[in-house]
């Protein structure tokens, strides 16, 4: 082998990509040619030098958090897309020539319902026998239907509805302006105090709504405790690692609960709850993604953010 051929193959040889035959020839040549051997030595030193290149790259927890959040978002979007697909399919049915009459018919039915509802709400009403209890500022839950409803009240684990009389619906007997029912029940009950079946809370719906609110309240309380516990972890900057295994596992549990509650709040239009749960979620994600033995710097980063954003105060005041 000539020197030129050897030099041309040296990089390939150094990269471990020369064929067996080429390698044999190069080795034979190097044994007798100091110039080519020196060249190989320089190339080897050069490669060695580049292995010292240090980009000082650290993988911050935020990187995974970003990936996880985007994946979760994509999963949610895919889920809602499949629902939209179903909606479009149903809409497609109505768009078919055979069903075209359905849209105007449905519009007429809706108009009729609205007119009926407006009439119902504005018609003169007889005073209800429970009107004397609709007082302003009554701090206790009051049964708006009198004693006859006792059986349902007792069986119902949900607190009885309360009233206040500060609104503007004046001149129609009892001044029941706002009933502390969940939205669906309120729409059904306002203005129909004499009809007990309607005034009484809809047990099924109220149970669902109140349970959800109670779950959210309990969840937020647990999250608040978790954040307080995390904020109070004792460590010093000289520690190599901080044991956050308990907070991490707790955070993982609360995170899945948080996602579920936030979705429920969103679908039922409870935007304050959705917003609160949404603010909480990044903290849960961050803690859930820490290793069991976290670096003090990572722990401090989260606790600083907990303090800076005053999330605990926000949870407390919710």
């Amino acid at each position, binding site marked *: 082998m000539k020197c030129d051929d050897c030099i041309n193959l040296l*990089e*390939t040889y150094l*990269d*471990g*990509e020369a064929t067996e035959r080429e390698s044999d020839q190069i080795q034979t040549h190097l044994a007798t040619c100091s110039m080519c051997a020196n060249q190989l030595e*320089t190339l080897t*030193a*050069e*490669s*060695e*030098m*580049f292995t*010292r*290149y*240090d*980009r*000082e*790259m650290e*993988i*911050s927890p*935020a*990187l*995974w958090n*970003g*990936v*996880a959040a*985007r*994946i979760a978002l*994509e999963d949610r979007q895919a889920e809602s897309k499949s629902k939209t697909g179903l909606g479009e399919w149903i809409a497609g049915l109505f768009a078919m020539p055979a069903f075209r009459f359905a849209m105007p018919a449905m519009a007429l039915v809706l108009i009729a319902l609205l007119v009926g509802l407006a009439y119902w709400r504005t018609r003169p009403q007889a005073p209800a026998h429970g009107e004397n209890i609709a007082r302003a500022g009554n701090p206790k839950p009051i049964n708006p239907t009198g004693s006859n409803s006792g059986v349902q009240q007792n069986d119902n684990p949900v607190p009885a509805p309360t009233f206040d009389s500060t609104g503007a619906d004046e001149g129609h007997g009892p001044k029941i302006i706002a009933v502390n029912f969940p939205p669906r029940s309120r729409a059904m009950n306002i203005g129909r105090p004499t009809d007990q079946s309607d005034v009484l809370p809809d047990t099924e719906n109220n149970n669902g709504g109140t349970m959800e609110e109670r779950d959210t309240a309990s969840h937020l309380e647990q999250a608040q405790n978790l954040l307080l516990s995390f904020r109070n972890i004792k460590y010093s900057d000289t520690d190599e690692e901080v044991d956050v295994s308990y907070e991490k596992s707790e955070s993982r549990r609360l995170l899945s609960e948080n996602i579920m509650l936030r979705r429920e709040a969103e679908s039922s239009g409870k935007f304050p709850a959705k917003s609160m749960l949404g603010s909480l979620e990044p903290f849960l994600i961050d803690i859930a993604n820490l290793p069991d033995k976290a670096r003090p710097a990572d722990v401090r980063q989260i606790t600083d953010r907990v303090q800076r954003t005053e999330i605990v105060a926000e949870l407390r005041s919710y």
Partner: protein
Amino acid sequence: MNSSADLVSRACRGDHDAFRMIFERYSRPVLSFIYDQIGDRDAAEELAQETFVRAYRSLKSLREETKLSTWLFGIAKNVTRESIRSKVRDRRNVDLDDDQVLDLSDQSPVPVNQLLDKEFNQVVQRSLAKLDDDKRMVFTLKVLHQRSYEEIAEITGFSIPKLKTDLHRARAEMRQRVGRYIGTIGT
């Protein structure tokens, strides 16, 4: 149990922990590779994030015979190229107008002090930025990430002769700019 193939198969079935392990295993080389291409730490993190989101999205399309790391580098290469085309390139070009960056062929004696390693790192990073895109990619994959020619061809889509030529030229350019540090770094 936690081989790449096993992790991929579990992640395809919706196991988020498995995907997390894939991330933990490959995030550093992928992030470094992207940083080598664009020289911007924040942008590199964004693109690494995009790389793993895309990987998650198309995990099911990963062929069994493809090495996971090679596949991830391929996605990172696409993400980086797209970004370079749109905005990052402009930013780097502005940076490169800095005289300090261009003064790399200076052959004055290298100061031997505790800042030498740091200086070396900066010079390598700036020298990489001076290479054209193809050469930079081939050089970083071979010299900094120790990928085989076959893997580089798979990641970049280049033929073996082209990547060998690019690699040879990139080495020559890098030698001209960084060669003065040979024997002084890490000794």
